[in-house]
């Protein structure tokens, strides 16, 4: 149980409105990711839902009950912070027990829940250590443990993986996804990393300057971005956006084509260009190609190991079925 509904929620700090009226519904059991560039208001939105910030106008409903003026503890939500926010003077066991102790739960029940959470998160061996003696990934798991013992209506994650190194991040990403499958609880996850958003989410909410640009499943966002911002933000490497004469040929102000939807050839094609930097990843090769159609170099993906010499001439052909068209306002043309 954890359906969260935001109705025309706004937030202002002094005179500055960081979140203009915003409506959003997060269904029960859904893994929702808020994604957007730094300063887009995604963390603020999460803190509004958590109750750590007061909303200026509008209402928040959790499971159909008005939670707008409830204190954080009464909302039944658990949060995992970017810095983990573990209590450094308490052992792992006491950290995890803290919310239960505050709820004045029976000690036997507390122990039972700690054991259960510890075994789920592989923390059993570390229960008597202090957070300072744990590695980054373990601390992250303790923070998650402290959240799951409360059996909350929803979990809120505020960029939980950004302090971990790349390899660990991939691992923890999987663990969190798996946890969601197992618990089937609503989760709201804030990140600026669109790869995390694409891999974990049931539903992605793309935010820019406090405004929701698009809400949808990862594939919807990938296949049918609603505007140029979403088109450029979702997908790695970024979609190539071309405006000007070439776009007008397709009756659009801007056209977009993803690197994986361009064919590259030495002999013939639609656009002529010069090879710039090549990035060889083994499974794929990315070429940055300087073309006549646009000032920005275009990114092109070739599968497997393909080699072109720096500066050599190539021809690019976009696959027409994957071409995205946008009008003057940057909105998608169907």
């Amino acid at each position: 149980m954890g359906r969260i509904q935001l109705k025309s929620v706004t937030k202002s700090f002094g005179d500055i409105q960081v979140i203009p009226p915003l409506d959003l519904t997060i269904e029960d059991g859904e893994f929702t990711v808020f994604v957007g560039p730094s300063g887009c208001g995604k963390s603020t939105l999460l803190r509004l839902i958590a109750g750590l910030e007061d909303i200026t106008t509008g209402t928040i409903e959790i499971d159909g009950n008005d939670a707008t003026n409830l204190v954080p503890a009464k909302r039944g939500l658990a949060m995992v912070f970017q810095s983990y926010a573990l209590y450094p003077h308490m052992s792992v066991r006491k950290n995890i027990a803290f919310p239960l102790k505050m709820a004045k739960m029976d000690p036997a029940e507390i122990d039972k829940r700690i054991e259960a959470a510890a075994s789920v998160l592989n923390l059993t061996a570390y229960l008597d250590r202090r957070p300072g003696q744990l590695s980054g990934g373990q601390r992250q798991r303790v923070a998650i443990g402290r959240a799951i013992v409360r059996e909350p209506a929803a979990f809120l994650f505020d960029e939980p993986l950004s302090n971990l190194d790349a390899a660990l991040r991939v691992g923890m990403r999987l663990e969190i996804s798996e946890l969601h499958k197992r618990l089937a609880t609503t989760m709201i996850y804030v990140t600026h990393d669109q790869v995390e958003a694409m891999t974990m989410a049931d539903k992605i909410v793309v935010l820019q300057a406090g405004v929701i640009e698009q809400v949808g499943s990862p594939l919807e966002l990938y296949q049918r971005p609603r505007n140029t911002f979403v088109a450029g933000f979702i997908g790695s490497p970024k979609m190539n956006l071309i405006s000007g004469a070439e776009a007008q040929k397709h009756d659009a102000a801007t056209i977009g084509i993803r690197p994986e939807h361009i064919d590259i050839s030495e002999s013939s094609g639609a656009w002529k260009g010069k090879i710039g930097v090549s990035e060889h990843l083994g499974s794929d090769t990315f070429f940055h190609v300087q073309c006549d159609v646009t000032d920005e170099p275009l990114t092109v993906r070739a599968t497997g190991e393909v080699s072109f010499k720096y500066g050599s001439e190539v021809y690019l052909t976009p696959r027409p079925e994957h071409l995205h068209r946008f009008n003057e306002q940057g909105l998608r043309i169907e």
Partner: protein
Amino acid sequence: MATKASRSAARLMMAPAVILLLGWMLVPLIMTLWFSFRTYLPLRGGDQGWTGFDNYVRFVSSSAFWPAVQTTLVIVLGVLVITVCLGILLAILLDQPMWGQGVVRILVIAPFFVMPTVSALVWKNMFMDPVNGLLAHLWRFFGADPISWLSDASLQSIIMIVSWQWLPFATLILLTAIQSLDSEQLEAAEMDGAPVLKRFAYIVLPHLSRAITIVILIQTIFLLAIFAEIFVTTGGAFGTRTLSYLIFQRVLESQNVGLGSAGGVYAIILANIVAIFLMRIVGKNLDN
């Protein structure tokens, strides 16, 4: 600082400071020990030779000794309790965002810059004077009889004066400690359902434990030796004679350097006993 040459160079360059500090400590210590075993009455025949442990026995068996030890401990403990408790409250208060924060912080720290003699005089004449003091006026305003602070409540008065002096120090150290508390920890505790007082007890206070330890250790060292406040206000009368004041009286008022030096050695021992106790009780906090 890795090579042999650079290490010995470092030692050489540190040597003057180390030797100076060592001499600074050792010369008075050895002189105190030396005089404590001699009969030395500057105005009554000067140095009259060895007396063994006579001075030590006389100092302890004097009726003034145990009350002086007790007074010392009462003042130290009283000031510690007041400064730490009020210091925590003030630190929390000053940590809140408010208008004129910078000025208020400087004002709070100001008493620390006032010399002990001066502040004791100000308290004695401006506040605690039973006729013209501000407190006397206040008492009379409410229709009460003014208290003659320094004779009727002498020990409390001195504790109050010294606390006023040391409160800024405690506040300053505790404030910096509070500012280093990660706000996400407090938010996490808030989400975990801890109300304000429990957040204080479970998060803020443990975070401050190390700073409190430092405040207690440093203040104890200085408080064991307070002198000016007593000299200026009561002159050691009305039960305010501390150990260091007693030593002063033995040496200068009774003109008995040997006896005073023996008292000095006792003071060293007392200070070390207190220090060891403190280290054992609160030193654990410094480990983790």
